C-alpha cells in the first residue's frame, strides 16, 4: 500500500481532532452560531468515531452535509466571496473532512486546512494575543502533520519535534519579514468587510456625545515627540471644527474646502512629533495646534483641520510639526465670519439677552467681550461633571443659569452661543486634550476619554483665538487629566482611574508592547523597510537588491542549520576512512562488508573467501580494531593502517 493510502490510525485521528480544534476555536466568534454548533457536533462525532471505533459515515451523508453547510453559508451571507463567508466555508469543510479520514492523504489535507484557518484568524485581528495563539495552533498543526507520517512517538515528543522544526523555520520567517519587498497597504487588508464602526469623535456634537467617549479607554493615537513633551495645558489635538448649530447639535461644515499649503504664517518655536493614528473610520487626522505642516497625502481644511484624502481605515503614522504660537485667520473671509455668527432663530432668550448686553457695553471690541464672557463663566461657578442633568430645548440657558452642571460639550456650546449672541464670531473645535506619557516607551498615549471640545473666537487683528471654557471652571481637566477634574465617585473607565498604581504600571507596559508591535510589525511598510534597511547600511534598497539579499541570507541560514544538524554527527574518523577504502576493495572482489559487522569477524569471513590475502586482511582488521577499540590508540598505527590499506591489492 502506498504511503498516502495508509489508513488513519487512532492516534493520528486524535491528533487531527486536536489540530482542527486549535485552528477552529479562535474563529468561533466570527462564524454564525448555527455553524459553530454544527462544527462542534462534527468534532464530537469525530471524537466518538475514534473512541468507539465506529465506522465512518457513508459518503452520501457527507455529500448531503457539504451541500447543507454550503447552502447555510450562502443563505447567511448571500455570497461565498469575502472574508467571513470564506472562513465560514473553510470551517464547514474542515469539520466534514474530519468525518472522512480514510487514508493518510485525508489527514494531510485536514492539517493543511488547519494551517489555512490560522491565516484566516489574521484577517480579523492582528493583535499580539492573536499572533501568540496562532503560534500555538501552528505548533499543534505541525505536530499533527508529523503524526500523519509517523504516529508512534509520544505526543510530547511529537510536539517537541514540531517546536524544533518551527524554531528552525524562525530565521527564515524573520528574513522574509524584513527583506521581502513590501507593497503599500496593510499586510492583512481585504477590500471588503474592512470597515467596521470605530468609536471616536464624530461629525457632530450634541450634549452627551463626548461624555460618552469618556467611558472608553481605547487608544485614539500615540505621539512620539522629537524633543520634550510640551506641558499638558498645551496639548490641544485639533480635530473637526464645528461652526454649524441647529439649536441642539453642532456639526462640521458640509463642504470642506481644503488647502494644500498652510493658509497662515507660522510663528514661534516649532514642536516636532510623530503621530500614529488608530483607524477612526473618518477622514480626519489630528494635529497639535496650530498645525505647522501638512500631513502627507492630506490637506488642511479652511478651518484648519488636518484631513486625509482617504478614510482612515488602517493605522497611520505621520510626522508633523506644530507652531503653538501661530496666529491663524487674521484676514478671515467674510463668509466664514458670517457663518461663525449664525444662530438658530429663537430659543435661549436669557443668553441672547446677555450677549446683547455685552454688545451694548463693549460695542465692536471683540477682545473686551471675550474677557467679559470669560469673567462671566468664571463667576457662574459651573460644575464639570460626567453626569450632567438632561436639558430641555433651551439648553444653553438651562446650563448657564439653572443646572450649571455640564461636560465639555456644554461648556463649549454655551460659550460659543454667548459669544455669537454678542456678535463675536466663534466656533466649536472638537479633538483631544492632553494624553499620558507611557514611561515604558516614552510615547504619549491619547485615549478616547481624552476627547474634548473647546472654542475659537475671532478677534480682529489677532485672528482665531483658542478659549477653553472648560479650563475656566475646571482647570484640573486641562492641567492634569479627566480623573482629577470630575467629582470623586463618578464612573470613569478603569484605565483613567489614578488610584490603582500597579494597574497603571501594568497597563503602561502592555501599551508599550502593543505600540511596539503596531509600529514595527504591523506598521512595517515600504517606508519603514527602506529606512530600516538603509540604517543597516543597505544604501537605497530596491526590490532587486532585497531579493538578492534575501536569497543569500537564506542560503547562509540554511548552511548554519545544516551545520547545526551535522554537529552531532561523528566526524569521519581517519581510521574509519581507511577501513572504508579497504572494505571497498574487498567488495570489488565479492566480499561485501555489512555495516553492522565487527572488523575481526569480517576479516575472518574475507580471509576465508580469499585465502591468498588472509594475512594482509587479518593484519589490517587487527590494526583497525586496535585503533578504534583499544585503549590509547597510537598515531603510528594509523599511519601503518593507511600504508597497508594503500598497499592492499586483492
Amino acid at each position, binding site marked *: 500500500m502506498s504511503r498516502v493510502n495508509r489508513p488513519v490510525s487512532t492516534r493520528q485521528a486524535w491528533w487531527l481532532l486536536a489540530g482542527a480544534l486549535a485552528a477552529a476555536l479562535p474563529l468561533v466568534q466570527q462564524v454564525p452560531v448555527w455553524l459553530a454548533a454544527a462544527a462542534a457536533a462534527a468534532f464530537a462525532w469525530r471524537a466518538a468515531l475514534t473512541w468507539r471505533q465506529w465506522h465512518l459515515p457513508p459518503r452520501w451523508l457527507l455529500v448531503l452535509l457539504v451541500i447543507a453547510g454550503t447552502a447555510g453559508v450562502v443563505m447567511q451571507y448571500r455570497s461565498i466571496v469575502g472574508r467571513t463567508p470564506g472562513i465560514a466555508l473553510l470551517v464547514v469543510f474542515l469539520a466534514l473532512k474530519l468525518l472522512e479520514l480514510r487514508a493518510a492523504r485525508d489527514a494531510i489535507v485536514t492539517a493543511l486546512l488547519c494551517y489555512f484557518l490560522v491565516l484566516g484568524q489574521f484577517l480579523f485581528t492582528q493583535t499580539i494575543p492573536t499572533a501568540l495563539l496562532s503560534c500555538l495552533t501552528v505548533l499543534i498543526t505541525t505536530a499533527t502533520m508529523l503524526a500523519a507520517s509517523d504516529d*508512534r512517538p509520544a505526543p510530547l515528543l511529537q510536539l517537541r519535534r514540531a517546536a524544533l522544526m518551527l524554531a528552525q523555520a524562525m530565521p527564515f520567517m524573520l528574513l522574509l519579514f524584513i527583506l521581502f519587498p513590501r507593497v503599500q497597504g496593510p499586510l492583512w487588508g481585504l477590500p471588503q468587510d474592512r470597515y467596521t464602526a470605530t468609536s471616536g469623535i464624530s461629525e457632530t456634537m450634541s450634549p452627551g456625545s463626548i461624555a460618552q467617549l469618556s467611558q472608553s479607554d481605547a487608544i485614539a493615537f500615540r505621539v512620539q515627540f522629537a524633543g520634550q513633551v510640551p506641558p499638558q495645558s498645551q496639548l490641544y489635538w485639533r480635530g473637526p471644527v464645528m461652526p454649524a448649530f441647529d439649536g441642539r447639535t453642532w456639526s462640521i461644515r458640509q463642504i470642506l474646502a481644503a488647502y494644500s499649503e498652510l493658509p497662515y504664517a507660522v510663528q514661534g518655536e516649532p514642536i516636532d512629533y510623530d503621530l500614529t493614528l488608530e483607524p477612526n473610520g473618518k477622514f480626519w487626522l489630528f494635529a497639535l495646534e496650530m498645525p505647522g505642516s501638512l500631513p502627507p497625502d492630506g490637506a488642511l481644511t479652511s478651518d484648519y483641520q488636518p484631513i486625509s484624502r482617504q478614510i482612515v481605515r488602517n493605522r497611520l503614522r505621520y510626522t508633523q510639526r506644530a507652531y503653538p504660537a501661530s496666529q491663524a485667520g487674521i484676514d478671515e473671509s467674510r463668509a466664514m465670519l458670517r457663518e461663525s455668527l449664525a444662530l438658530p432663530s429663537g430659543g435661549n432668550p436669557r443668553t441672547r439677552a446677555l450677549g446683547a448686553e455685552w454688545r451694548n457695553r463693549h460695542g465692536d471690541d471683540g477682545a473686551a467681550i471675550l474677557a467679559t464672557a470669560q469673567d462671566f463663566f468664571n463667576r457662574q461657578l459651573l460644575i464639570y461633571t460626567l453626569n450632567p442633568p438632561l436639558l430641555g430645548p433651551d439648553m444653553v440657558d438651562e446650563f448657564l443659569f439653572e443646572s450649571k452642571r455640564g461636560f465639555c460639550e456644554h461648556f463649549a456650546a454655551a460659550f460659543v452661543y454667548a459669544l455669537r449672541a454678542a456678535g463675536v464670531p466663534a466656533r466649536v473645535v472638537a479633538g483631544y486634550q492632553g494624553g499620558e506619557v507611557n514611561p515604558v516607551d516614552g510615547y504619549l498615549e491619547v485615549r478616547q476619554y481624552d476627547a474634548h471640545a473647546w472654542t475659537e473666537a475671532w478677534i480682529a487683528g489677532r485672528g482665531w483665538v483658542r478659549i477653553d471654557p472648560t479650563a475656566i471652571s475646571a482647570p484640573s481637566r486641562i492641567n492634569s487629566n479627566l480623573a482629577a477634574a470630575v467629582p470623586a465617585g463618578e464612573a470613569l473607565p478603569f484605565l483613567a482611574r489614578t488610584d490603582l498604581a500597579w494597574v497603571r504600571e501594568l497597563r503602561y507596559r502592555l501599551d508599550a508592547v502593543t505600540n511596539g508591535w503596531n509600529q514595527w510589525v504591523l506598521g512595517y511598510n515600504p517606508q519603514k523597510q527602506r529606512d530600516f534597511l538603509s540604517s543597516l547600511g543597505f544604501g537605497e534598497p530596491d526590490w532587486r537588491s532585497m531579493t538578492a539579499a534575501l536569497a543569500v541570507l537564506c542560503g547562509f541560514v540554511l548552511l548554519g542549520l545544516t551545520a547545526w544538524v551535522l554537529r552531532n554527527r*561523528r566526524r569521519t*574518523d581517519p581510521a574509519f576512512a581507511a577501513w572504508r577504502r579497504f572494505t571497498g576493495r574487498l567488495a570489488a572482489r565479492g566480499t561485501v562488508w*555489512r*555495516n*553492522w*559487522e*565487527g*572488523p*575481526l*569477524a569480517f576479516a575472518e569471513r574475507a580471509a576465508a573467501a580469499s585465502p591468498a590475502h588472509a594475512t594482509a586482511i587479518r593484519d589490517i582488521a587487527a590494526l583497525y*580494531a*586496535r585503533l*578504534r*577499540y*583499544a*585503549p590509547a590508540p597510537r598515531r603510528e598505527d594509523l599511519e601503518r593502517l593507511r600504508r597497508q590499506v594503500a598497499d592492499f591489492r586483492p
Partner: protein
Amino acid sequence: MRLPELDAVLADINRIILGKERPIRLALACLLARGHLLIEDLPGVGKTTLAHVLSKVLGLEFQRIQFTSDMLPADILGVSIFDRGSGAFHFHPGPIFTQVVLADEINRATPKAQSALLEAMEERQVTAEGKTRPLPDPFFVIATQNPAHQIGTFPLPESQLDRFLLKIELGYPDPAAERELLAGADRQKMVAELAARIAAPRLVELQQAVRSIHAAPALIDYVQALAAHTRTAPRWQAGLSPRACLALLAVARAWAMLDGRDHVMPEDVQAVLPGVIAHRLRPVDDVARSDPEAVAAALIEAVPLP
C-alpha cells in the same frame, strides 16, 4: 595477554560437557562478570553437571537446591533452632551459604520462595532473625528453569528475571558429541577426579580485572545505538533498560577477557547479546517464545556500527 588458566578451565569443562563450547564460555563469562546465570532447558541436558564442573575447576564450594512447590524461604536461607544445651537460638545456615548455588527448577517454587533466593542474589547477603549475614565471595547462582509452558510452573516476573545477568540454553548435543558421551567414561567419576585450576581468591582478582577491560568510546556508542534502536523501533515491546546496557557491557568485557584482549570489540557485544536480551527483550509479534539467537541477529543487523 591470554590467560592460560582460563583456557585450562574451559578445556576441562569442555572435556566433560561435550559440544557446548559457547554456552560454557558464556557461563564462565557470566561468572567473571560477577553475575548470576539462568539456564532454561529440558531436564537431562547437563545443567547440573555444568554447575558442578564449574565449581570444581574453579575451586569453589557447591550446593544444590532443588526447588519444589512446597518450599519455604527458610529452606533456602536457613533457620534458627533452639539449642537446649546453651538455652539460646542458633542459626543453622541454609544451603545458600556457599560459593556456587545450583537453584534447580526455580520456577517450580512459589513466588515467595523464589524471591527469597533472588533477594539474596541481588544483595549478596541474607537477613534472617534480624541479623544480616554476608554470603561468601565469590557468590554465583546458576538457576535452571523448565520451559514456561510446562505444567506446574510459576514463571518468574520480568523484574526478577532482570537480576540474572545472562540466560542461556544448553540444548541437545549434536549427534557426534552425544555419541562421544555415550561411548566415553562415566561423567560422575570424571567430575570427582577433576582438580581445581584456580583458587577462589584468584577468581576474585579476575573478576576485578574484567572491570578494567577497556571499552572505547566507539564501543560505548555501539551499545547505546543498540539500546536506542530497541527503544524507538516498533519491533520491541519495551526497550533495553540502562541496567540491561550495563549487563551487556559487563558480559562483553568478560568475553573479551576470555578472548585474551584488553579491550572490548563489537564482536564481543554481538556474541553475548543473545544471552543478555533473551530474558529482557520481547518482540511485539512474540507469540510464545522466540529464539533469542534470531532476535539478537535481527537486532544486530538493524544497527550499523557507529
